[in-house]
């Protein structure tokens, strides 16, 4: 059952030289209780897509198309929705987790307050109830000593724990959809393993739906159910996870997989160097590329 449906989404950046397309018409469906991975390199438009869902695009960007959130039969159009509607959606129905754990939490507000303020605003619960719920949430995300953690501040936790707390804050009001933008990229691999386990657990246990935006194909392979690959603002391939990795259809997908160090397509360092120095998939290396999408 579809819970979030993106249709014909276009995002343009207003520049002095006219509008510059960032996302050029994409369709994507997030099924309930599934993790949908949105993969791509930097400049592919994947992050902007996620931001568009919650109306978080900067003023210099315009978005057209449709982003429909469906729950309990009724559908809400998110794109271009009035501020009141979005305010009711953000944090309550659709929540977001960002890449950098050190900037996603307010450094000067206690963890407890960051959780409970949120809850009390959206859910209208009393102080005691909110506190109990906050402790539950911290237990759910495996933060040690939840009661004690409420009084602490973000800087007193490690990067991995901060990311877990950020997930707890995102889950505080029981959202239907969680948008995660590179949630584990800044974490150590052993810490990442724990956070991925947490995400998968949340989806399996409480039926959370997750749109996971990341460039890391290893992460995709570990937790995503469906994977959509973007390049330069358009979708090049979208398939169930197993199929995408074992039988990629599009040349770009194949090149992404081949570039992985751990990929099954073995290439010696010399071949890789030749690719780098020659003209690999994409533009030849040249200096003045103002809109360079990633590297080559």
């Amino acid at each position: 059952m579809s819970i979030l449906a993106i249709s014909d989404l276009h995002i343009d950046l207003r520049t002095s030289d006219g509008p510059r397309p960032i996302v050029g018409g994409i369709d994507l469906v997030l099924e309930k209780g599934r993790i949908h991975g949105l993969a791509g390199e930097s400049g592919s438009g994947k992050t902007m897509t996620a931001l568009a869902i919650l109306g978080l695009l900067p003023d210099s960007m315009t978005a057209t198309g449709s982003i429909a959130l469906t729950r309990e039969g009724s559908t809400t159009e998110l794109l271009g929705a009035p501020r009141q509607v979005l305010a009711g959606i953000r944090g309550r129905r659709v929540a977001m987790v960002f890449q950098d754990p050190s900037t996603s939490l307010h450094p000067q507000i206690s963890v407890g307050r960051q959780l409970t303020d949120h809850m009390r605003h959206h859910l209208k619960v009393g102080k005691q109830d909110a506190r109990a719920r906050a402790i539950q949430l911290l237990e759910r995300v495996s933060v040690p000593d939840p009661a004690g953690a409420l009084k602490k501040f973000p800087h007193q936790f490690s990067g991995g724990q901060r990311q877990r707390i950020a997930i707890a804050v995102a889950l505080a009001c029981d959202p239907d959809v969680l948008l995660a933008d590179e949630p584990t990229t800044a974490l150590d691999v052993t810490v990442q393993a724990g956070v991925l386990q947490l995400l998968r657990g949340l989806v399996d246990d409480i039926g959370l739906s997750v749109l996971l935006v990341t460039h890391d194909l290893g992460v995709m392979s570990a937790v995503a159910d469906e994977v959509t690959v973007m390049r330069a603002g358009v979708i090049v391939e979208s398939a169930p996870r197993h199929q995408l990795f074992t039988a990629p259809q599009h040349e770009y997908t194949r090149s992404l997989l081949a570039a992985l160090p751990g990929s099954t397509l073995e290439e010696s360092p010399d071949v890789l160097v030749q690719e780098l120095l020659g003209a690999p998939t994409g533009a030849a290396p040249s200096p003045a590329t103002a809109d360079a999408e990633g590297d080559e």
Partner: protein
Amino acid sequence: MTLPTVTTDEIDPTRLRWRRPRLRLGRWSAPLGIAGAAVALLWILVAIFAPLIEPHDPLAQNLAILQAPGHGTFMGTDELGRDVFSRVLSGASVTIPLSLLLVVMSVLIGAVLGSIAGFFGRWVDELIMRITDLVMAFPTVILAMVIAAALGASLLNAVLAALIVSWPSYARLTRGLVLGLRQSNYVVSGQLLGFSALKSLWRDIAPNILGPILVLASLDIGTAILLLSGLSFLGLGAKPPTAEWGSMVSDAVQNFDSWWLGLFPGLAILTVVVAFNFIGDALRDALDPKSNTLRGGGLTL
């Protein structure tokens, strides 16, 4: 600490949204900057060509005393029968070059000391900063007055006094800027390649701190003019009969009824100071890489 792996090619939405709080000028800073530059240029030309354009000898006391503007003179005459207009023009050739000299010297002394302090650190930094603190602890104008009075009233001594009180702020600023860049990877790379301290400072650090220093300097020209005029006003600078705006205003105090005596030199000071302030503001906005006003990308200096 590991950096996040998203490269800078990804457009950062928060950076696009947050606009630097605009001060009073906002998008007017560019046209005002140009206007300021025009006025400043005009005054500089006046300063250079004053002897050629002044209708009367600024020191000659041969006109009717205390005549209001209009009767043959543009700005009237003073209590000794001198043409105010000519004296205002001549005053430009005194005030402007000296103020510019003052700022240039302050910047040089302050920047050199600040660079040494910031680059070498440790006891060198301590020593230079304590001296800077010491000088800065005194109220600027009063200290300048004391020094000028001690050295004897003359325009050159006034400049010297002003110099002594002006260099510390540049030293502070420069030190901060140098400290900010000192540990940058490219500076360290230079050292690993065998750069001497001088080479590091000259090649790697100086070009990258020039901007803020230049902005401060241009905004400071107005302060320099006021300081020198102020000292002259107090009798600690230009000696009579030299035509200097500050001392002209001071003399005007005695003849309050003759409004033209104080107004015109005062207006001269005002227009020059404001002109340089506008230039400074425009420069600051142009060099601010986050500013969307002038060129979005900023000047490369």
